[in-house]
């Protein structure tokens, strides 16, 4: 055994003498073949490594053994993972102000929501919620839509008696106000729940349809902006500060607003592609929420907005700042 250890010890001493590249762990709990990995994260990582002039190595862990959606935030804080992708919702109690972007009927696309949120971060409105980490990108998944197995929902009246799976308190409250009965279940249980009739439908963005094969068990789809889930790419503060300057600059150059836009745009495209593919399957019915009906829904959902404002420190100010950003973006749109 000593013969095996010895060379490694000797080589280690040699290695410390020379310059050696820092290896960082990047972890994402998403499925290995998720398009976000190949289309956003991998080019992004390659770019950073290339610009770091040999000072940086990044090892990727997908569907990560290093952590799951529930513990990724802690894993980064504790230095188990250096850089990670995570969704905000499971980090209960931490990003209450950032949550403004998840409210229903506030955003039209993932891109505008992502940029608006990043602007709030940059302008110091929600910045302090990220004090413990080094934030690299902040983005929204597209708005959740309604996907039903054997009954369509077009108006408020259609919600009566519909058992619909929701993913968090905000979605549950939203659904209850619209008149449905929320059922709680993890994302991996949706397929079975729908196929066995435990619930009649689910609230989930289009980006969640393909990974869980939900097009096999749903037929009626309604595009309604029922709120988004927020995600981020972030880094352990110490890991960042311990890097050589070249490496730090390489990361900073490729992150922030540019990564945010990339992620927002990608999740819109991803959703559109999945919607398009589903549309081509026979028997699938995809509809848009009727504008008049939308006004009714918005009125019904006012209590969700009110209670968010009441329960969030500085809630009113943050909501109006977010709406301003969105208006700004829409007015500058070509």
């Amino acid at each position, binding site marked *: 055994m000593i013969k095996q250890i010895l060379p490694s010890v000797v080589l280690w001493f040699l290695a410390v003498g020379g310059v050696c590249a820092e290896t960082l762990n990047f972890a994402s709990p998403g499925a290995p073949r998720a398009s976000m990995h190949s289309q956003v994260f991998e080019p992004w990582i390659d770019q950073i490594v290339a610009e770091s002039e040999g000072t940086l190595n990044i090892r990727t862990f997908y569907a990560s053994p290093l952590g799951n959606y529930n513990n990724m935030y802690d894993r980064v804080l504790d230095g188990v993972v250096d850089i990670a992708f995570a969704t905000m919702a499971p980090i209960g109690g931490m990003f209450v102000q950032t949550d403004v972007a998840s409210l229903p009927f506030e955003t039209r696309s993932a891109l505008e929501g992502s940029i608006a949120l990043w602007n709030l971060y940059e302008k110091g409105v929600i910045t302090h919620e990220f004090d413990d980490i080094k934030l690299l990108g902040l983005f929204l998944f597209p708005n959740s839509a309604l996907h039903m197995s054997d009954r369509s929902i077009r108006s408020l009246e259609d919600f009566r*008696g519909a058992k619909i799976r929701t993913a968090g308190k905000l979605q549950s409250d939203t659904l209850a106000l619209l008149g449905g009965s929320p059922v709680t279940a993890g994302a991996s249980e949706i397929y079975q729940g729908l196929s066995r009739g435990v619930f009649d439908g689910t609230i989930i963005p289009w980006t969640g349809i393909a990974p869980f094969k939900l097009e096999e068990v749903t037929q009626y789809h309604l595009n309604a902006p029922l709120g988004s889930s927020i995600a981020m790419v972030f880094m352990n503060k110490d890991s960042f500060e311990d890097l050589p300057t070249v490496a730090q600059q390489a990361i900073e150059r490729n992150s922030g607003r540019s990564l945010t836009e990339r992620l927002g745009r990608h999740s819109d495209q991803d959703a559109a592609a999945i919607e398009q593919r589903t549309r081509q399957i026979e028997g699938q019915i995809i509809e848009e929420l009727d504008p008049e009906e939308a006004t009714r829904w918005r009125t019904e959902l006012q209590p969700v907005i009110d209670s968010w404002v009441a329960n969030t420190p500085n809630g009113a100010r943050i909501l109006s700042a977010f709406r301003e950003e969105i208006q700004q973006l829409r007015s500058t749109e070509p």
Partner: protein
Amino acid sequence: MTDLIDQLNIRAARITRKIASLGVLLMLAIVLLTAADVLLRWLASASVPGVNEIIQLCMAVAITATFPAGVTSRANLTIDILQRKVTEKFHKNCSAFGSLCLLLLFGFLAVRVGVHAQHLSERNAISLFLEIPQAPFIFTVAALLSITTLAQFVVFLQDMKNALANYRELSDKGLILVAVFSLLAAAVLVSILGYMTEYFVPTALDYAGIWVGILFILLWIMALGFVPIAAATGLTGLLGTAVFLGNGPALSVLGSEAAEYLGNVQLAVLPLFLMMGGFAAQAGLASDIYKLAHTLFAKFRGGLAMATIGGCAGFGALTGSSIATAATIGQVALPEMRQRGYSAGLAAGCVAAGGTLGQLVPPSTAIILYAILTEQSIGQLFIAAIIPALLAIIAYMVTIRTVVGFAPDSAPSNNEKTSLKEVLQAAKGALGVLVLFGLVIGGLYGGIFTATESAAVGAGGAFVFALLRGKLKGDAFWEVMAKTTAMTAMIFLLIIGAVNFSFFVAISGLPELVTGFVQNLDVAPLLIIALFLVIYILLGSVMDPFPILIITVPIVAPVIADMGYSLIWWGIIMVCVVETGMITPPFGINVFVLKNIAGGDVPMHTVFKGVLPFVLADLIKLALLVLFPALVLWLPSTM
């Protein structure tokens, strides 16, 4: 004064039992809450919102509450294949060392789960739906782990006393001094190790292969040296993670993984199914089902042996343990068969083989463990096991016919006739078992229950049966609970060790290495599967199913998945193959259990000879399952 340690032991046993009772009552409360949720959903199509979150947080506390009693009753899994090869003195020394390792693990766990709770409290972590603060629950878990550490210290004292008795007479006070001193020495050693690992972190990845080799050797030395599996895997995992990621992250992983798996909703089914098995045995359901099987098969030659297989299958449906099945049915069936002139070999062989049905017929603890290690659905795996289990039952019955055919003197020829009336009467007596099984598996298959709910309904149902039959009078209730808590503590400790070990395996890059190696081999996937199976049968003949699963699944499962095979299918194959190991010479555990029941007049080699035809049947069944995966995968696909 000389009895200080004995007194400590008695006191520790008394206190820890009280704590475990509280934990068990909490579990019963969870059973009732879950049952209420199921009922409400059924009657009013509404559900208690966020009931998962309550289960999660309370279960973590309830399960940890069984730990102190678990360690005082020494509910540990240890690989003891070398026990008869070493001197008693050496074995005692090793036991003391193993105790020390476990003490270290508990110490680390208590502190790190505490730190984890502190983190949760600092960021006001709340649950998603009910917004319950999480920190108080995890702090309670940390406190219970501290109590467990103290209890383990008492166990350690006892083991030291046993070990040192070989050398010199020491007063108990002196012993405690020695124990504290060795604890300090261990602490110093751990600090030095921790200091060293920090040096290796930057280059560990470049020498991943060497490190994995070293740590695996360390694991095997500890495991074969009678260190409890939980401590061997947990400490190796901790050290390995420290080498690759650094001490801080490694310790943080230990704490947060422990907290997470203790509160894992999927895992909550384990203690509940254990409880169901305990109550079912207490209610006498085992002999009910044996009687029914007896009336059904009495007219065949070797009918009693077939009835034993049927009884094992039926009881296996109520418990998830093959040893429990072999022992419970063995106590009823073995004397009966011997009395009626069955040969010792056939009688013992069919009970030992039938025992393996305990693990194959759902619910099964090995399947639950596999599901956790590979993140597969427990419900689907249970349903997938049904056809293979039926196949095993048929194969065993055919085996009995064949054995009786070739060796007519192994079973009496006087066949009994049973009337339809007798069958119906026996069926009526076994109605309890049938209802319970129908509820648990039917509800799971039909989508009425989740795995957790079916376990809760099963445990609740078995409890009611035992209660109505008046079998829970006096201390009986607490005896069932004590057995449940001991098993719960043992399995969850194993799981905590296992998840830390597999974390290390995952970050070491070993699975990728093995997968790459297998890909480069360029041989037919079926050949690789066959190779794995041979290795597993060899491993199974010397080791328990649980450690085999824990050590190999993190490495092998990625290879299987990479070759394009279903992990549900592989799970069933794994359980079959390690269960075959349970009855394969030289160290099949079921065989030892049987030997104990059979007593002195049946020599070991007779039992093994009797079990051999059943091993053959197992191999044929295995070949069928490998060649026709649809046998496993079809039923879950219809769910």
